[in-house]
């Protein structure tokens, strides 16, 4: 195992070295760093050109420039990385430190969300293969996949940004909007739930009625500007979750699992009140929030283990998922509480540019909301593309798993459909997906180049583009190195994950 990892790391270094050499030569030959000066009419332009030649080492041959860069990077081995300086004399290492956080935030959230959404849709479309839902999802997924990012971004800015902000000034649904949403829900939900024609019709009608009641109700409560959940709604949803997850993962007749999930909801309600004032202005910011979340998980595990009895494993799983989702709802409740105040500070919440509003000051929740609203558009755009990949891969690998002999055997011996899908088919279909996740993360950093450009973020992608356009090697190399390292690292992790998911593989 260790020798395997070591071997992989060594080959990774060789790959990175080759890639860096190639990219370096390509970058320094990609254009003319003196271009702007050559067309300048300044009196001292000759002098400026000489100066730029000397501080960018343009008079040195390519191998010597590469060597200068490489010796700086070699310092990483002893913990003193020198990424070099860009053409403005700024330290690229510091630039990376600044830009990496916003890029990673963007890419990380986009990856997580697209994995969740992509896998869920993938499973649903695989279960309902060749239904109209399957066709519709395939159509949209391919549409999103083939959208040029910068073009989609312009549309998103217009619809989700400008139009939404305009609407938010005096939020009011028109009857057309309500009916359209109602019709869409009435068609979509029965397609997902399935069942006999009669049952579908009924579900559709119920959904339509639901929308018809809820949307005007939200309007009258001014929900878009003053949203709230409150303990009652959270508890009701929590109980619903406890039942739903139990039914999905172990079956409702497994009372121990159901009771432990319900206990989790009860404890959650108590802790909602217990942490309420602490969370109004959490000391330590996100650290406190994450700390509380970890405590929640620990408590859930404890409840699952003590109450689970013979079904310990399932009880823990259901408890933990219930607790996590309950915690997310509590978090959402606090965000909603801060929303009206946030709108006072930032009347047009969805911005089209930047990773945060300059000079924004507010309490913890308001600052988080600011960063969150700035993330909405770029994350959506970045997600659209990779959701497509996940959906299609999950669907096809689910279908492949469902057609295996062991599934037929499982069905033949009378295992119920839920267990077949989640325990036998899903787990096996996850194996090829780990590879995709690994590739996708590195790919998304690359995809972030365009997204950052279009949304005016100062991430690594932007550093790359700016560097490349002026044939300035240091920033481009830093980007290459980090994306390359991420790609290699994630592939390694994927290989190790195989062993966890598939006991047949030994590394």
């Amino acid at each position, binding site marked *: 195992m260790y020798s395997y990892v070591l071997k992989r790391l060594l080959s990774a270094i060789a790959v990175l070295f080759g890639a860096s050499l190639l990219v370096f030569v390509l970058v320094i030959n990609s254009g003319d760093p003196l271009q702007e000066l050559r067309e300048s009419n300044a009196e001292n332009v000759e002098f400026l050109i000489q100066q730029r030649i000397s501080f960018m080492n343009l008079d040195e041959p390519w191998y010597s420039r590469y060597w200068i860069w490489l010796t700086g990077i070699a310092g990483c081995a002893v913990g003193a990385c020198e990424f070099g300086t860009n053409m403005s004399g700024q330290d690229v290492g510091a630039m990376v430190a600044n830009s990496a956080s916003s890029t990673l935030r963007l890419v990380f959230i986009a990856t997580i969300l697209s994995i969740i959404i992509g896998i869920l849709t993938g499973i649903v479309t695989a279960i309902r293969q060749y239904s109209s839902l399957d066709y519709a999802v395939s159509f949209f997924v391919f549409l999103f996949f083939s959208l040029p990012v910068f073009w989609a971004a312009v549309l998103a800015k217009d619809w989700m940004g*400008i139009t939404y902000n305009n609407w938010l000034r005096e939020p009011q649904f028109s009857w057309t909007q309500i009916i359209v949403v109602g019709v869409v829900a009435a068609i979509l939900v029965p397609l997902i739930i399935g069942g006999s024609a009669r049952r579908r019709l009924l579900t559709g009608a119920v959904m339509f009625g639901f929308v018809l009641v809820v949307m005007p109700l939200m309007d009258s409560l001014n929900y878009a500007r003053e949203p709230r959940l409150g303990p009652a709604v959270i508890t009701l949803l929590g109980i619903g979750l406890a039942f739903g997850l139990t039914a999905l993962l172990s079956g409702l007749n497994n009372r121990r699992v159901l009771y432990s999930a319900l206990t989790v909801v009860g404890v959650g309600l108590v802790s909602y009140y217990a942490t309420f004032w602490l969370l109004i202005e959490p000391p330590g910011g996100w650290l406190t929030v994450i700390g509380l979340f970890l405590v929640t998980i620990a408590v859930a595990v404890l409840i699952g283990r003590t109450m689970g009895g013979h079904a310990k494993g399932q009880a823990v799983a259901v408890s933990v998922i219930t607790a996590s989702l309950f915690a997310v709802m509590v978090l959402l409740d606090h965000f909603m509480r801060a929303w009206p105040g946030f709108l006072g500070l930032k009347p047009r919440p969805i911005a089209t540019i930047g990773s945060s509003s300059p000079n924004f000051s507010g309490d913890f929740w308001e600052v988080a909301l600011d960063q969150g609203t700035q993330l909405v558009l770029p994350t959506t755009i970045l997600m659209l593309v990779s959701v497509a990949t996940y959906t299609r891969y999950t669907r096809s690998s689910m279908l492949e798993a469902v057609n295996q002999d062991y599934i037929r055997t499982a069905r033949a011996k009378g295992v119920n459909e839920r267990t077949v899908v989640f325990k036998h088919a899903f787990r096996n279909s996850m194996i090829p997906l780990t590879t995709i996740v690994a590739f996708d993360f590195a790919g998304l950093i690359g995809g972030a180049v365009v997204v950052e450009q279009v949304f*005016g973020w100062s991430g690594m992608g932007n550093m790359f583009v700016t560097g490349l356009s002026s044939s300035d090697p240091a920033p481009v190399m830093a980007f290459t190195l980090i994306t390359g390292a991420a790609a290699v690292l994630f592939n390694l992790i994927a290989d190790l994950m195989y062993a966890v998911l598939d006991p047949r593989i030994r590394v």
Partner: protein
Amino acid sequence: MKLRKLSAATAILATGALVLSGCTPDGGNGDAEAEDTSNGENGETSGNTDAFSAEGQQYTTEPEDTGKADTSDLETMEDEISVSMGEIEFVGYNGSTPESYSVYNSTVVNRIFEGFGYWGTDNVWYANEDFGSYEVISEDPFTVEYTIGEDVSWSDGTPVTVADYVLDWAYQNASLTNSDDEPLFNGISQTYGERVLEGPQGDPDGKTFTIEYSEPFADWEIMVNSTLPAHVVAEQSDLELEELVTAVREADTEALEPVAEFWNDGWLTDPGTLPDEELIPVTGPYTLDNWQAGESLTITANEEYWGNAPGTERIVFRFVNDGQHVQALENGDLNVARPQATVDTRGQLERLEDQIVLHEGEAATWEHLDFNFNDGPFSESLELREAFAMCVPRQQIVSNLIEPVNPEASVLNARESLTFEENYEDIVAESYDGTYDEVDVEGAAEILEAEDAVGTEVRIGYAGPNPRRTDTVAEIKASCDEAGFEIVDSGSEDFFGPGGAQETGDYEVALFAWAGSGQVVSGQNIYSTDRPQNYGGYSNETVDDLFNQLATTEDADEQQEIIIGIEQELWGDLFGIPLYVHPQLSGSDISISNVRDTASQDQIVWNAEQWQRAE
């Protein structure tokens, strides 16, 4: 170049998207018509002299000339205005090193430093009388006396004195060298040190100094402007201010070494971190406040400012690709922006006319065709150059490519003066007789026949990809091929690069633009024999003499006479063919007063301290 291509593509697609999203085209058009009729009336009654005023722009004080209006009655409003000039990041407080110097950095640092003058909207130099005054006190030797205003001080309370201007001279003086014989100070210009050998004379603590030129100098007015704080530099290099001044005056390079070291690097910080507050005092209406690397830089009203209060508490420079400006303006993320000057952008801004003021103007950048005098068919034959000039459809190029962006655009008929400048008409009237106003394909064909040069290949080189230049070449080809030339589009990415066609001489005509600096003598580098920017290898003794004369003439009227002489020679010889001045577009929120566009390099932020949102 890549960047520009990408953003151009984004812009094109952006319009496509807007058309697709179909945002109420009818309403927009209706409004536009209504606005048009009222525009006509305005045009007749207002009669504003400033070519850069925009329809719908409000002013607290109407500008009277191309300089800044008097806004002494403004009070600073607790407010924030966001502006973007593009995505190029701010670099540093000291914008006078080659690493940090750029038009973009200057748009910020020129807001925090004031000096003896500034460029008006037509790129003409205005004296800044609030800051101080200057006058020529002797013609021989040519000596100028500067007086700094009594209450002019740094934001840390230290008065601005002669010592600051001694430092100003030091860092532009290449004769101060280290042991390796390299200049101590890593400054962008050395002209000051070459022209003024002794530096500013006067009591270092005083407010008055004189500088003596070794010979009269045409651009003397812009030689001394703003400076960096000498007291900070002295403190950081463990010297008394007195000692620093003495060291500079005595050229004591050993003592100056730590001074230069701090000046070169001391203000250079990592992106997102500003130097300590006490290191960066300012003389202007704003101070550097908050820098988010790659995203924004906020400048805040200088509480200790000695002059008129700025209109708005905070100006936020955001570093955003210019392809994104229009939507950001619409969403209010930007309040003032300078998107790409394209037909599409214009259309988008026009559609937002009840929200955004469209500023259309001209940059001090101009497009031209230059002949290759080193070799090729044009190098020897004036007749062929004339034939080429006769068939180039200049008016058509302007009508098809420039007027859609700037309807006021016209063909440029001079090189040393641009269409928006005051003396342009006078200079053109006396130097150019209108020979090449109309395309004369037949005349050109006759010359080609007579010269036995039918079928002459003309490679027009430019730095591509550049759609506008490609279109320009296509227009020329359509017209000149008919006359008997064979035009070849030789645009390539490395046209100006090392080993590119410009360097190897593989072109007959070069198509590019010069970014005008406003200096009087900057043309000397382009048109005089063997000068570095005389790419085509042009040589004309009369022009050389006239430029030498111009460089040492400080009287504006005499300068104009000499420029007329130069233009006559350049038209007679057909050095090249000027085409047009580049258009520029800016947009500003309709609620903000006093926004004006300008041809100078600072662009629309040049008077940012006068901006104020109407309540």
